[in-house]
């Protein structure tokens, strides 16, 4: 019989197992030493983040270990971190998840006393919409602003002018009318695109009509005339057949191919368009959010929080302070394309010289957060989307569906 190759394999495996078992990831979850910090960074920004914090490490001697978390997986990571009590020191928190993080009890409270030694973290340094108590939950602030994101109107200037539209629409009613004209270009062509997963859009539309979605009692309240007007526009675009009805419509391709020459989206779309279709330069631009009585847009983005059981709270706060320096914010924008939240950075000449960025920053100043309810993505926002989508995609009765939505959401509170 052949020499037992298998026992060789088995021994090798056993040896490597022992070696590897000892080989845990370098740096445990929450750094034990005051000279280390573990930071959770979302998506593929971690390489840029590493570069960004080099000066911080040089000056403070604190080593920063970034862990990249896939966007789709943040729920799992958070759950298991909470379950085991082992989290990072600093964590990037997408604003739509802020409430979930806060409710988990895992974040450190960042009251005035804690922040008093860190001038860059003072509330008035940041955009009003997201500074200080704007993100307080249950009266507690548990994060500081990091990067911002907003929504503006993207449009194909070449296609619009070829169809007799000289200026991008300034109001939602104008947008609806323009979309209808553009849809008339032919089969398979649309005027606008409503993402079926975008729970922020109907809320933005409501704000633009001058309305709120949160009542004075702190409860969600969709039962307002402004919301009804927003629903009119939303369902109207579908009724006009100005928007595609499939769930897998690709924004970038849709815009670059001209199939959807108008979209509401964020700055990341601009960089995607530039790299996917550089020859479109000059044929497209951005404009402020169409208005109703106001042109209020969404304030999205990410904050940074400190893990409650972190063993290096001082180091974490120092890092947050560094990240809030105007220069750091500008550098990150250059590296990663995400907009600052620090007012001084937004007003910097390097930002205001870019015409696109000027539109973004103007939009940011008046932008608002989505309501900080216990679970916007999974419940309230989902209920809103399901209601609207069942009306426009399945032909459900508008009044009964909307009334059911009121009932399902009006006991959700933001505090």
């Amino acid at each position, binding site marked *: *019989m*052949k020499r*037992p190759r*298998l*026992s060789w*394999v*088995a021994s*090798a*495996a*056993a040896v*490597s*197992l022992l070696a*590897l*078992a000892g*080989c*845990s*990831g*370098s*740096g*445990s*979850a929450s750094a034990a030493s005051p000279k280390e910090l*573990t930071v959770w960074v979302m*998506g*593929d920004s*971690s*390489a840029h983040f590493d570069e960004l914090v080099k000066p911080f490490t040089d000056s403070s001697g604190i080593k920063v*270990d*970034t*862990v*990249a978390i*896939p*966007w*789709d*997986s943040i729920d*799992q*990571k958070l*759950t*298991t*971190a909470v*379950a*085991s009590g*082992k989290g*990072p020191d600093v964590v990037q928190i997408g604003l739509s998840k802020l409430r979930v993080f806060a409710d988990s009890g895992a974040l450190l409270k960042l009251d005035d006393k804690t922040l008093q030694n860190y001038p860059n973290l003072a509330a008035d340094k940041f955009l009003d919409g997201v500074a200080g108590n704007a993100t307080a939950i249950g009266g507690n602030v548990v994060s500081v602003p990091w990067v911002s994101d907003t929504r503006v109107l993207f449009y194909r200037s070449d296609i619009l002018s070829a169809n007799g539209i000289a200026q991008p629409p300034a109001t939602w009613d104008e947008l609806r009318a323009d979309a209808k004209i553009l849809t008339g270009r032919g089969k398979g062509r649309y005027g606008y695109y409503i993402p079926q997963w975008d729970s922020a859009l109907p809320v933005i539309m409501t704000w633009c009509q001058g309305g709120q979605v949160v009542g004075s009692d702190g409860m969600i309240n969709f039962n307002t005339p402004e919301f009804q007007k927003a629903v009119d526009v939303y369902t109207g675009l579908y009724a006009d057949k100005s928007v595609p009805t499939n769930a897998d419509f690709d*924004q*970038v*391709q849709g815009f*670059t*191919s001209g199939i959807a020459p108008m979209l509401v*989206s*964020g700055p*990341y*779309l601009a*960089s*995607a368009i530039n*790299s*996917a*279709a*550089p020859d479109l330069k000059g044929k497209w631009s951005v404009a402020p959010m169409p208005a109703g009585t106001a042109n209020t847009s969404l304030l999205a983005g990410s904050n940074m929080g400190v893990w409650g059981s972190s063993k290096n709270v001082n180091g974490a706060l120092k890092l947050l302070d560094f990240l809030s320096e105007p220069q750091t914010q500008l550098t990150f924008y250059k590296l990663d394309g995400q907009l600052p939240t620090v007012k001084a950075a937004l007003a910097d000449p390097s930002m205001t010289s870019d015409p696109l960025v000027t539109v973004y920053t103007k939009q940011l100043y008046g932008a608002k957060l989505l309501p900080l309810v216990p679970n916007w993505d999974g419940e309230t926002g989902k209920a809103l989307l399901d209601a609207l989508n069942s009306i426009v995609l399945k032909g459900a009765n508008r009044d009964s569906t909307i009334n059911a939505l009121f009932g399902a959401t009006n006991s959700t509170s933001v505090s």
Partner: protein
Amino acid sequence: MLITEASPHRTDTAITRTRPPRVRRTGSSGRLVTGAVLGIGALITAFPFAWMVAASLKPRSESVAYPPDLLPKHPTLQFFKQLFSELDFGHYLLNTIAVVAISMVGVVLMAMAGYGFAKFRFRGREPLFFLVLATMMIPVQVTMIPTYLILNGMKLTNTLLGIALPALVSGFSVFLFRQFMSTIPTELIEAARIDGAGEARIFWRLILPLSKPIIAVQIVLTFIASWNSFLWPLIVADDEKLYTLSVGVSLLNRQLATNPSLQMAGATLMVVPILVVFVIFQRFVVQGFTLSGLK
């Protein structure tokens, strides 16, 4: 029950020599037609794979081109390079290999269990085997949080061992081992015992070598499963340095502005090694299933 059914038609001691496969005498024209039909079927089946490879070589502007072209006009390896230089794929590759290596230990453990269930009679054998089978019916989502808590209690989170452990053993594979090993003639084992060999020696020196086909099967299946594993590496790794290829590929999925060529490059990187392994072990895989009495 189905497990203890004897296979009455097996009379030859097929284990000590490789049997030539039984080929039906089909006319050569019949074979030609069959071959053609299968060939077309194979092309259709493999088509998405071909698309993936082609797409990984397309520059970004071509990846959003419409109407779509199968072959890239200006093929580029830039995205593969990017995976290793900018993103940490070299690291992810090493981690994946390490997880696969640890999983191979699982193959040995399952072989042991299959042997125990097949060739020994002991108290609790039926209920234990039933439990083993029952684990096949447990939905993965159920196990995620309790398993994580167990790993945490064993201080195995953020280790490669912790990543490999939950999926180290599977009821399906234990079942296959048992099926196969029950066809090993007990006389051989008894003879070895009479010669004075200890149980461990019998296992290593007699049983395992005789089980090469099924072990080959298990190596391939385990390789595939642990190479592609996504869930446990993601959950158990606190540190990006422990991420495997699957997790790395999913990191490439930005929220909205994706880079299809880069993602396809990552995906291609994941498939090619497994394909190589399969092609090498292919012969043994079919043999292994054959001889395990699955007929």
